[in-house]
């Protein structure tokens, strides 16, 4: 359950391919924080399209990653939340205030660009 982290220019892409245990999520957090510094990343995309479940713990860790990386100058976008997973997350009342979201990796990269260079009239969260 080792999540591959790929470097795409100034962005790191973590593709979560297996269901992770709680410690698996914490390991991903620690590795991403370490890699973001080492690779001087300006943005991180976390792809959860293979995940059947995003429960309160996973969501909390992902948001913590976004908060931590913000202190390191990088933005975080979660991509690929499946429709049924989105439904369950909303029913459960989960929130992801610090991480952005986008439909897929492509849209995630666009969202990171937008966050670094917000167009006139748009508010950077």
């Amino acid at each position, binding site marked *: 359950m080792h999540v591959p982290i790929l470097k795409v220019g100034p962005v790191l892409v973590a593709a979560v391919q297996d269901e992770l*245990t*709680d410690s698996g999520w914490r390991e991903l957090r620690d590795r991403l924080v370490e890699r973001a510094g080492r690779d001087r990343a300006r943005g991180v995309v976390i792809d959860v399209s293979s995940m*059947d*479940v995003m*429960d309160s*713990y996973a969501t909390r860790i992902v948001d913590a990653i976004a908060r931590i990386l913000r202190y390191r100058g990088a933005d975080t976008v979660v991509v690929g939340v*499946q429709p*049924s997973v989105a439904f*369950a997350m909303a029913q*459960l009342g989960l929130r992801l205030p610090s991480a952005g979201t986008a439909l897929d990796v492509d849209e995630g990269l666009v969202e990171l660009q937008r966050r670094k260079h917000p167009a006139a009239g748009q508010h950077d969260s």
Partner: protein
Amino acid sequence: MTPDRVVPVRHEADVLAARQAARVLAEKIGFSETELTLIATAISEIARNVITYGKGGEMALEVVTERARRGIVITARDQGPGIPDIERAMQDGFSTGNGLGLGLPGTRRLMDDFHIQSVVGSGTTIVMKKWKR
């Protein structure tokens, strides 16, 4: 009533196993993808409580038929310290020492039926049901 599966819930890997076991069982009776995800998510939340607050326990999974409808019943049991104030624990925003809350009100929203019984000093039992639409 004999459960179809009983899954031990002692270590965090058991959370994934319980989730998977319920998914396989619920798939057999034809739940939709969204319903399967709601069930798996509810199991994830409750199984974590069993480990974190209940000091471990088990989950029994059972397919039930009532009149024309079929569903799945999940019974989670632990012999932990119990929940002193269930009414409060069932309120949104209630949280325990670590500030994370038990997630019980959210989990109840994922299921059709949710019952909790807890005796301080001897443990907690949660029975939750989901009917196939």
